């Protein structure tokens, strides 16, 4: 094979699994199917709700309309359009992971060898803890239907679920997370830190829930003098992250730890970040993680968690549409997280109300040929020590 096969606008690297012709076609089909559902099928759920499900609900209850997103969900559950949409949407999620998993498992041995070969190049490190207790919210359900989750290991030195995540996220996001799936990190750096804190120069940085380190690497580039650490619960994603960072020439110190309680000393970091991690933690775990951030930050340090905004102020039907993933797409913590007042939680975790803010920043993603030019938005929970 002359050049590695990639998706349009995707940057190849040594650890990225390479789909063959039909695997790439199936992954392309999943993208087309997801786009079709989003643009041509999902709008029908709102129509069916207004024209059929809500009137039916009201007629059975003396004229009372569904009161909140939970009643809207129940009103829709009996409608065949909603059932078909839900079923095909769920199937598309399974197909997404299957289309990538088949490609990854075909190359699993080779990927493990490549991971081994990439170590020691950039000066980063990997510290695993085989005895780490996996918390219930991560152990019981493999988030977003990814087989194996972040921790499934099926061979010694396995990196398969890391490769599955790296390629799967690119397919899932249809490339909108950038050529290296690093747009969230790039956005926080360029559109928040550079814009709002231009003189900020952290000496030590910690990325919590880093998965394959895709959002971690922009911080290495932005702060070349900083010592960059990254933690996650899963050993195989960390093995992959370490090898990926080394292959891409970025020094990151990865360790297998729970963000609720790490082994770093008090005041060890100047910048703590996370990217789309809050909605994968339970509310109690989130509170402990925010308190841990407060413990770990040095005076003058910043905590920035990039995720999606809460349900407050969003109309109930939109809430119900968003909440579909909570109940039906293995995102059980999505709705609970969005129901919390995270500013209040951060304030209560030690930051104090005056040192916490919620910020919306545009994403930086650069779209090239064949894609709709569109900027997204990222919600940031910011705490200053």
């Amino acid at each position: 094979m002359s050049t590695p096969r990639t998706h349009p606008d995707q940057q190849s690297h040594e650890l990225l699994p390479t789909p063959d012709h039909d695997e790439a076609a199936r992954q392309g089909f999943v993208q087309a199917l997801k786009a079709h559902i989003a643009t041509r099928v999902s709008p029908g759920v709102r129509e069916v709700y207004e024209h059929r499900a809500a009137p039916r609900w009201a007629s059975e209850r003396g004229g009372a309309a569904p009161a909140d997103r939970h009643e809207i969900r129940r009103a829709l559950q009996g409608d065949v359009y909603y059932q078909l949409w839900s079923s095909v949407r769920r199937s598309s999620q399974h197909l997404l992971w299957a289309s990538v998993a088949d490609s990854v498992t075909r190359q699993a041995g080779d990927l493990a060898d490549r991971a081994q070969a990439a170590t020691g190049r950039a000066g980063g490190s990997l510290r695993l803890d085989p005895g780490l207790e996996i918390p219930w919210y991560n152990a019981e359900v493999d988030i977003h239907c990814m087989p194996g989750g972040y921790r499934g290991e099926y061979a010694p030195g396995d990196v398969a679920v890391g490769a599955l995540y790296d390629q799967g996220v690119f397919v899932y996001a249809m490339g909108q997370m950038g050529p290296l799936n690093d747009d969230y990190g790039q956005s926080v750096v360029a559109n928040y830190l550079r814009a709002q804190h231009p003189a900020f120069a952290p000496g030590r940085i910690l990325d919590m829930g880093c998965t394959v380190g895709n959002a971690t690497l922009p911080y290495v580039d932005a702060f070349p003098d900083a010592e960059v650490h990254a933690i996650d619960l899963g050993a195989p994603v960390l093995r992959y992250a370490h090898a990926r960072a080394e292959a891409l020439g970025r020094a990151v110190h990865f360790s297998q730890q729970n963000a609720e309680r790490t082994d770093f000393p008090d005041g060890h970091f100047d910048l703590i970040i996370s990217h789309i991690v809050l909605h994968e933690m339970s509310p109690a775990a989130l509170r402990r993680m925010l308190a841990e951030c407060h413990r770990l930050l040095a005076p003058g340090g910043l905590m920035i968690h990039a995720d999606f905004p809460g349900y407050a102020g969003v109309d109930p039907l939109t809430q119900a549409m968003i909440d579909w993933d909570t109940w039906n797409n293995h995102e059980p913590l999505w709705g609970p997280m969005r129901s919390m007042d995270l500013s209040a939680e951060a304030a209560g975790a030690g930051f104090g109300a005056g040192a916490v803010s919620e910020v919306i920043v545009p994403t930086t993603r650069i779209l090239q040929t064949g894609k709709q030019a569109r900027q997204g938005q990222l919600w940031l929970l910011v705490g200053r020590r």
Partner: protein
Amino acid sequence: MLGGVPTNPATAPQAEPVDGRTFPTKARGARPVFFADGGATDAVLAIVTSLAAEVWALRERVTTLETVLAQGGTIPAGAVEAHRPSPAEAGHRSAEAAAFTARVFRVFEEMREEALAGDTPDGYEALVQRAYDEI
């Protein structure tokens, strides 16, 4: 240290494949049931969705073959695997995939039109009955 790390931390069970497989096919946690038939319709839809992906893969393979044939006049060994779509070609394929998907999932649009029009099977049967009544 990559190769020497013990696998399968004993702290919590992970998703496991069935015998003869090296990787699980599904995520840990139950799959939802959307139709009140024990999951039969959901399974049929999963099969149809997978089948659609297979049909698409076939179509794309044919497209690749046609492109390669047009370019070279013959098909040398490995020509399909070696072919890399140009950006323009990739864009064309995305558009084709969108049109293909719209054809396969046409039923959703039919149902949307039906919902907006207020058409129901009962209404249709009433129309037939009305015709019979005119006999």
